[in-house]
């Protein structure tokens, strides 16, 4: 795949955060899509096949854990899933990494520049 513009899917139920992440990442030239919960996220993943997914854990309808259990990662070899949450719990972190997440980040630790750095690193390394 040789896409010139890399795409990111943000699965996040908090509208204020969706918006700000979209502003920040778009300004850095990424193609940003959003989904409000895990179920929507699965649908958009299938349709868009993005390069990266930013996945929240606590969401209504379907949460991040369920999303990870449902998704068949073999179908998306070029998609990296970064889980981020404001719940810092080593058990959940281990579980998500075990389910195939690329990395786990504490949301509140990310300033805008940190978010950019995280995405750059994930996609270009």
């Amino acid at each position, binding site marked *: 795949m040789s896409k010139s513009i890399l795409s990111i899917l943000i699965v996040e139920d908090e509208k204020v955060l969706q918006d700000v992440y979209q502003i920040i990442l778009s300004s850095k030239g990424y193609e940003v899509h959003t989904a409000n919960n895990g179920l929507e996220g699965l649908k958009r993943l299938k349709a868009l096949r993005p390069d990266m997914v930013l996945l929240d854990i606590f969401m209504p309808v379907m949460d991040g854990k369920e999303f990870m259990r449902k998704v068949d990662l073999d179908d998306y070899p070029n998609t990296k899933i970064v889980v981020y949450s404001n719940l810092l719990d080593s058990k959940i972190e281990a579980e998500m990494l075990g389910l195939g997440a690329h990395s786990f980040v504490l949301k*509140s630790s990310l300033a805008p520049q940190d978010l950019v750095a995280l995405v750059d690193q994930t996609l270009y390394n």
Partner: protein
Amino acid sequence: MTAKNPSNPARNSTLNHSGATEHNFLVGGGEMGAMMRSFDWSKTAVGKIDTWSDELRTAVSIILNSSSPMFICWGKHELTNFYNDAYKVILGNKHPAALGYPANETWDEIWDISEPLIAKVFKAGESVYMKNLRVVINRHGFDEETYFTFSCSPLRNSKGSVVGLFGAVIESTDEVLSRQLLQESEDRFLNLADTAPMFIAMADESGNAVYFNKPWLKFTGKKMKEMKGLGWLSTLHPEDAPKFEKDFKHAFSEQIPIREEYRFKRADGEFRWMLAAGAPRFTPDGHFIGYFGTYTDFDDLKQAQLALQQREERFRTLIEKSADAVQLVSPEGDIIFSSNSIKNVLGYTPEELASSGVTPYLHPEDIEYFFSNFNDLIKHPEKQLTMQYRVKHKDGSWAWLETVGVNHLNTPNIHALVGNFRNITKQKEAEDKMRSSEERFRALAENIPNLAWMADATGSIYWYNNRWYEYTGTKPKQMEGWGWQSVHDPKYLSGVLKKWKYSIKSGQPFEMVFPLKGTDGTYKPFLTRVVPLKDDDGTIKQWIGSNTDISEQFKIKQTEARNEELEKITQQLAIQRKELISLNKTKDEFIGMASHQLRTPATAVKQYIGLLIDGFSDPLTPGQTQYLRTAYDSNERELRIINDLLKTAQMDSTEYTLKQKLYNIVEIVTDAIKDLHSVFEFRNQDIVFSKPQKPIKVFIDEIEIKLVIVNLLENASKYSSPGSTVEIIIEKKTKYVKIVVVDKGVGVSKDNQQRIFEKFTRVDNELSDTVTGTGLGLYWVKQLVELHNGTVELTSHLGKGSRFTVRLPL
């Protein structure tokens, strides 16, 4: 005087009648006989010889014919002296004047003593006997102390009246005085003997002890009469008795000096080694009269001597039976020398090993390990290191060797690497076996409903299953070793301890029912069984214990009502306990969720403000940027507080676990200092760290210990004035590593030194207004260090600075 001598005409006529033969009774009688014959008796009280009565004549004739000193005092009042040759010696210069002279005048100087005796003879008609009577007489021109033994008997006439006194006397002056001298000398000897710094004893010629000096008696605590004869042999060590008897018999038959060592029992029951030296005693004429013995307590010396002997023997045995072998190896890896004992270790003779180097024998997996150590050793003169690796035994098996290698390349006369080898295969196998069996046991013990634990041979408990912690609600660090006593009912504890200690001492299994306190604070009866785990030679390696809840079976005989009441309370408590547990769980979940929910809006604030500051939108004026920066920082602080609260809540929950591995603490400290670079730079402070050359590996959770160090350093910086210096020191001790953080800051008063380790404690001081914090940093330090089974200590003086010392076990 003469007037007192009435002549008896009748007698006179008789005497006269006898003529020349009348003086026959004076014939012979030596010098005194002659003297009496020529003596002019007419001037004496007895008158001329012709007038003497028959009784007087007989008596005089008796004394003159005796070779023993004898005398006569004639006449109750006159006391006229008669004496024989032998008596002259006693008289000294009183002779010859005494003859025919009154005794009271001759013996004027002792008359006060003599008179009552003489009176007794004359008046009472009794005989008098005196032995060694002491009198001071003057017979050689001076007062002389003399002693006499004598008997005086009355001489009677035909009517039975006492008319004279007959005395037989022996002078005993020499005998008495020489005996006195002897006594004095003996007293002097005994006195000397009693103060001598050694034990002295004497035996007579037949071997009976006749004397012990005071030190001897004091040593044995016995009385002289108990010791005399053969009594003292009760203090001889039974093991030494046969030798003593033999030596004793030999000495007494040969009468030669002896010098031997025996043990004797001291008053306190302890046997002490004594050096006995005996010398035979002889009278001046060479007659054997026994032994004189001295005994010297040299027990301390003897013990040292015995210990030395034992050590030498042990050392010799060690060399002969050594399981160790020694090799000298050149830097090129050639074997220069192997000790013969190499055969014990690897089965090869030194000759078999001499040709090839080490390499062909090494286990392929250990070659790299071996040579990295070997090369390291070569590079460092005097260095010593210990390696464990596998080597092919002559029998084809792989043997584990433990080698202590020392670099003696620069050592005169050696110039080689010296290796000391020991075959530790068995030990390794046992360790593996032990480890795997212990792991299997632990896995099993985690799946049983009983409480279970393991203790080392000394009874110190080092592992409990989770059921134990669940039931008692304790943490591992509280339970370590003998910490379990805190969940025992104090009423029964001493009994439990006594029995448990007995088991440890005797190796007997332990079985007992006693109550244990659960999380809810109530006691339940448990049947506790502990069995020792022994190795092949019967040495106890471990103890394995289980506690089984038998509250169901263990019905105390009480009234029904009481039982019911108890049951009700128990049920209530059980419900409360459930509620508490679920409440506790809810609390943990609540804190987790609350922190999540609190973070989310703060995260949004952070992103949006960050968006503006970082220039993702239209440019701002410097004033606007400044305001937003302040808002951003305040939000950051809130996020940090949320994090801190969450971490504290997690730390307080029993589920908090460490991810421990062996980490190099030097590196962790270096990282922490790097992280805090800007903090110290901000306050223009220096941080001094004398970094140890070698890594120090400690079994720790890297993140948590770094947090501990960061917190201590950050505190040191915060509470020191700008420009000051903070020092951090790492020291490796045998059992722990010590990390010390020293500042010259505001310090902590005595009253606050304990308090600052408590949750949310912030102590007021001159800098506290300018310093932010939640008061959790030192609480974490203490909690985290203690979770590592370490300790943290503070010494501080107000205004002078603080010194925090963390010790982590190695």
